[in-house]
């Protein structure tokens, strides 16, 4: 135990001595948490729309003004021909073309039937998808308005309409920030912990100081623990700062118990730090460690369920994400913060991440060789 005390004393001294890194560790996540959620916005606004109106009727005018009034679209072109509209798309001045055919109003009134044509520029997939969907729902709405106008009295007319009303549980206003901030915090904690630990042992290898450790009677697990604990403390500090930022700036107060949240974050940190230390024991230079960690970080983040839902991934990806500790943290953060889940609800995730922590750290101790 005494050895660990000396190891910890040394590690903390080194951490606190490097003021620049310390500041980065503290300030970087806070800044990112303040800035990133503002940018990582799922709502798409300012979709550039070109309208090709062959009808020039009062209905087509009504439809266009309804679309522009929605606030999502910016009318960037009002063209006489589809060709001109296409040119706008090619020049990247329009994301969508809505073509209103000749006789739009007449056919709608007389024949109860009309088609509209929407062209979507799918280079930016998210914008195209959402833009198309928004436009579709506005047109549907417009359609309902017309039906009411045309068939005001008839109770038995037309097909039965199912009206759907939905309510968003746990995030009633669908504020994307409530959804993104806990996830981004999860990723920041992962990055800080992962990179710091991955670079640490390998740094001692580069500087040659590991030789002096290896030739001493220090036990392997003491050495690893001496590395693990300081970063674990640091990780918890970053996590706390993150929670404070999300409370002060975004007004996110965890519905669930803070202790449950910290319990999970603590176990998660052990897992991700163990992973970093494991990488560190495999590498000879900080550069190698950096690139390997970067490789895994990309996978952890993109397959962690922050940006895309894991449920909609292909089966193989679902299996991969089961081995992704970050996916559990993001999930639990959202559960506890937004839904108010308790210890019992997160037990499966806690158990899995606990197993990760044990396996990764044991592997790191095993793979750290005092002699070769």
């Amino acid at each position, binding site marked *: 135990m*005494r*050895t660990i*005390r*000396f*190891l910890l*004393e*040394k590690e903390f*001294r*080194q951490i606190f*001595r*490097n003021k620049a890194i310390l500041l980065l560790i503290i300030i970087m996540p806070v800044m990112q948490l303040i800035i990133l959620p503002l940018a990582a916005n799922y709502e798409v606004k300012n979709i550039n729309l070109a309208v090709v109106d062959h009808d020039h009727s009062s209905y087509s005018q009504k439809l266009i003004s309804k679309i522009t009034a929605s606030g999502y679209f910016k009318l960037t072109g009002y063209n006489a021909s589809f060709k001109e509209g296409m040119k706008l798309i090619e020049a990247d001045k329009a994301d969508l073309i809505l073509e209103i055919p000749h006789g739009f109003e007449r056919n709608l009134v007389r024949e109860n039937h009309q088609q509209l044509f929407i062209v979507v520029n799918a280079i930016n997939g998210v914008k195209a998808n959402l833009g198309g969907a928004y436009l579709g729902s506005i047109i549907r709405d417009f359609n309902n308005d017309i039906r009411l106008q045309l068939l005001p009295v008839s109770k038995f007319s037309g097909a039965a309409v199912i009206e759907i009303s939905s309510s968003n549980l746990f995030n009633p206003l669908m504020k994307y920030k409530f959804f993104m901030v806990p996830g981004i915090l999860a990723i920041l904690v992962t990055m800080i912990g992962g990179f710091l630990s991955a670079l640490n042992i390998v740094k001692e290898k580069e*500087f*040659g*100081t590991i*030789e*002096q*450790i*290896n*030739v*001493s*009677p*220090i036990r392997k697990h003491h050495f690893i623990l001496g590395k693990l604990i300081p970063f674990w403390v640091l990780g918890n500090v970053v996590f706390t700062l993150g929670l404070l930022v999300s409370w002060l700036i975004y007004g996110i107060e965890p519905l669930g118990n803070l202790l449950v949240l910290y319990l999970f974050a603590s176990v998660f940190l052990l897992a991700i730090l163990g992973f970093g230390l494991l990488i560190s024991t495999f590498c000879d230079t900080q550069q190698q460690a950096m690139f390997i960690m970067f490789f895994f970080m990309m996978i952890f983040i993109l397959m962690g369920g922050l940006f895309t839902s894991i449920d909609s991934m292909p089966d193989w990806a679902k299996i991969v994400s089961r081995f992704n500790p970050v996916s559990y943290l993001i999930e639990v953060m959202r559960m506890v913060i937004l839904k108010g889940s308790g210890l019992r609800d997160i037990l499966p995730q806690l158990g899995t991440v606990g197993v990760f922590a044990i396996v990764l750290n044991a592997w790191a101790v095993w793979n750290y060789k*005092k*002699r*070769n």
Partner: protein
Amino acid sequence: MEYVIKTDRLTKRFGDFTATNEITFEVEKGEIFGFLGANGAGKTTAMRMLCGLSIPSSGTATVAGFDVYKQTEEIKRNIGYMSQRFSLYEDLTVQENIRFFGGIYGLSNREIKTKSEDLLEQLELKNEAKKLVASLPLGWKQKLSFSVAVLHQPKIVFLDEPTGGVDPVTRRQFWDLIYEASAKGITIFVTTHYMDEAEYCNRISIMVDGKIEALDTPANLKSQFKASSMDQVFYHLARGAKRSD
């Protein structure tokens, strides 16, 4: 005679390259043993095996009475090691380094305190105690490094080219430290490229291409090879070497 290091055909192979080829020798308790050889002769590899940093490919060896295969942790408790590269923590102060290495060898707080005071006094580093090691000149670093390696009173201390790149005056002071440690009963196992330093040793061995080609006192070696200086002895043996880096 009591031997603190005993090797028998100790060998280390890396693939089909034999770095250290069946070396057999003994080091007596309390002596200063010079371990000489050209670059790439296999000195560092041999030393790393004896320190428990490298697993031998074949042969046997005991250090301080412990087996280099099975009892490396016991060996590590009984030796000090100063590697070719400076390996104290540059981002810790002189005092913090002393405290850390004292601590991990199990010295008590009181021992650490008195020993580090003595050490700082002896090295005339009192004013630098709170300075980062990175800011010290190389010569001072090497002296500090040695003093830290013998802080826990090991039975043997292994020094791998401790005076490389150090000025002559500091080298002289460094050897004063070595004699002082030797006087306290610590066996010194040292590699060097300086032939004047070889003369300071009680006995020396000269390695060529992974093998020990000569082993005796400096005086005996000189008469054996009919040479007037250790320089000539070394040159006579090492010029036949095929390996160098």
